[in-house]
């Protein structure tokens, strides 16, 4: 590890790695140093539920040499906690090491699980928030001693983790405060097919309920108290209540922070030569211009690549991304959710089609001439085309009926 790198990147996940490999494409010489406080080399974070289920080893998840992460000569320093930042002397402070100097800095420290303060006893042994490989390993150790896990939150991560635990033979109860699972990604009515698939797969789901306290016995989780007065005995609790940006080390620095690092359109912070990308960055919604954070792997990669170009001297605007852009498959039910999908509050032009095995919702603006969002459940064919139409704010009059009928293909977009 050197005490100077031309490019220093704090954070070794999606945004940091994407930036490093992009910089290397444009600057074959400049030294690049990545710092992470995790003890593992960079890995594909969305895969960690597979460590819990035992379907993958940690080494199967490493980023270096996989996918687009094939550039060489990038120094990755693991187990290095960055404790501070001096934007005048251009140095980062490290917990157990002399400061490291830089010419260009990227802050891509990501986010950590949000732990709600109104639940008592969250520091009890047996309470988990799955975020890192290290968390996953801890969870694996606990799985064998446990027969019932209660999961707080109905988001994608918790659902994936829930299935990992089901596969390990545990009874799993999902406690969701919202009226339905996946409430961040769709309206309750949109989730009915997924809910049925989850129920059929043996997941117990309780909605409209919050936890108030973790019960413990000899320092270990022994149950959980819900706000409807019910107490569930369990040996394990997983918290999946969203994330908060990792910005603590910036206190005392000159970097402008507003629930995340405020980024301009060129992925730069307010300080010269200091850039930001990924979960920690506050960008803007391209549709409304309002500040936005997304906490999505794909968006983090995209912004990281943009930051990499800017750091290497190629000025590139980050055009923003859709705040909701998720695809996955749970309980053999694939789904995609993208763009504007919550339609209960405002006036939209909405088309729905329901069958026994599929559901789709297309959200147009009130005038019906622009596609704003889509939810596909069961059949997600050609979802990328709809994303393209949403993102490019395409004039859709000619193709609207194909969009509504889910028959859109690239030929329709050609001028032939």
């Amino acid at each position: 590890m050197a005490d100077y790198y031309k490019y220093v990147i704090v954070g070794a996940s999606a945004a940091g790695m994407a930036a490093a490999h992009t910089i290397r494409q444009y600057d074959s010489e400049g030294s690049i140093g990545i710092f992470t406080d995790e003890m593992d080399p960079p890995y594909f974070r969305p895969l960690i539920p597979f460590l819990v289920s035992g379907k993958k080893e940690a080494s199967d998840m490493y980023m270096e040499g996989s996918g687009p992460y094939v550039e060489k000569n990038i120094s990755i320093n693991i187990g290095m906690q960055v404790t501070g930042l001096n934007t005048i002397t251009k140095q980062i402070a490290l917990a157990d090491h002399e400061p490291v100097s830089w010419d260009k800095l990227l802050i891509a420290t990501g986010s950590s699980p949000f732990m709600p303060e109104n639940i008592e006893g969250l520091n009890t042994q047996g309470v988990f928030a799955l975020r890192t490989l290290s968390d996953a390993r801890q969870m694996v150790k606990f799985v064998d001693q446990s027969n019932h896990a209660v999961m707080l939150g109905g988001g994608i991560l918790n659902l994936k983790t829930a299935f990992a635990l089901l596969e390990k033979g545990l009874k799993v109860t999902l406690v969701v405060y919202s009226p339905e699972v996946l409430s961040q990604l769709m309206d309750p009515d949109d989730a009915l097919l997924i809910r049925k698939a989850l129920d059929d797969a043996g997941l117990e789901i309780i909605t409209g309920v919050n936890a108030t306290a973790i019960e413990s016995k000899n320092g270990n989780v022994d149950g959980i108290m819900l706000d409807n007065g019910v107490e569930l005995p369990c040996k394990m609790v997983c918290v999946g209540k969203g994330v908060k940006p990792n910005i603590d080390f910036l206190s005392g620095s000159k970097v402008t922070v507003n629930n995340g690092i405020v980024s301009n359109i060129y992925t730069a912070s307010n300080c010269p030569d200091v850039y930001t990308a990924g979960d920690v960055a506050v960008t803007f919604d391209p549709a409304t211009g309002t500040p936005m954070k997304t906490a999505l792997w794909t968006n983090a990669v995209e912004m990281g690549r943009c930051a990499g170009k800017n750091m290497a001297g190629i000025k590139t605007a980050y055009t923003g991304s859709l705040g909701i852009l998720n695809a996955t498959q749970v309980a053999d039910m694939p789904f995609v959710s993208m763009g504007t999908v919550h339609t209960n509050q405002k006036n939209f032009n909405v088309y729905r089609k329901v069958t026994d095995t599929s559901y789709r919702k297309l959200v147009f603006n009130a005038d019906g001439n622009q596609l704003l969002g889509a939810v596909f459940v069961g059949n997600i064919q050609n979802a990328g085309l709809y994303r393209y139409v949403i993102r490019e704010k395409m004039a859709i009059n000619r193709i609207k009926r194909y969009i509504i009928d889910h028959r859109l293909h690239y030929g329709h977009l050609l001028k032939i």
Partner: protein
Amino acid sequence: MQHQKEIFVKIDRCVGCRSCEMACAVAHSESKTLFNAIFEKPMPKSRVYVEWVPPDKKVPMVCRNCDEAPCMFACISGAITRNEDGILITDIDKCIGCWTCVMVCPYGVIGRHLETHKTYRCDRCPDKNIPACVEACPTMAMVYDTVESYSESVRKHASKELTRSDKE
């Protein structure tokens, strides 16, 4: 990676016979013969899609191997890489069937293999000199050529047409 051949499509020549789809599926079957491929389980899949554009155009669509390939950067498991020939390849062992690539591909050419829960796409037929779809096209609507050579042929064709119309 220089002068890599690409699959070009002459839309005005495509009659929509789907010979390319058939040839692709057979080329990606176990047996590599049409007769046996039909009985294979899971059924071999075509990686080329002939789409109909009203009123009368047909367009064979195939992975374009985009320069800034959205699928490769969006993949959450590192399954998609570019090989030394510039072809995007999905590592089936790494693919977890999350369909993120399907969500970001603007051409709609990444298929979902429902039986195996993996994605599939055009691999440009690595074992053949000419991709099966191109080889099978009876109207030569599909052309396998380098960008340089193909655009030259298009230029020549256009100038021939121009000279002809001058004479008329």
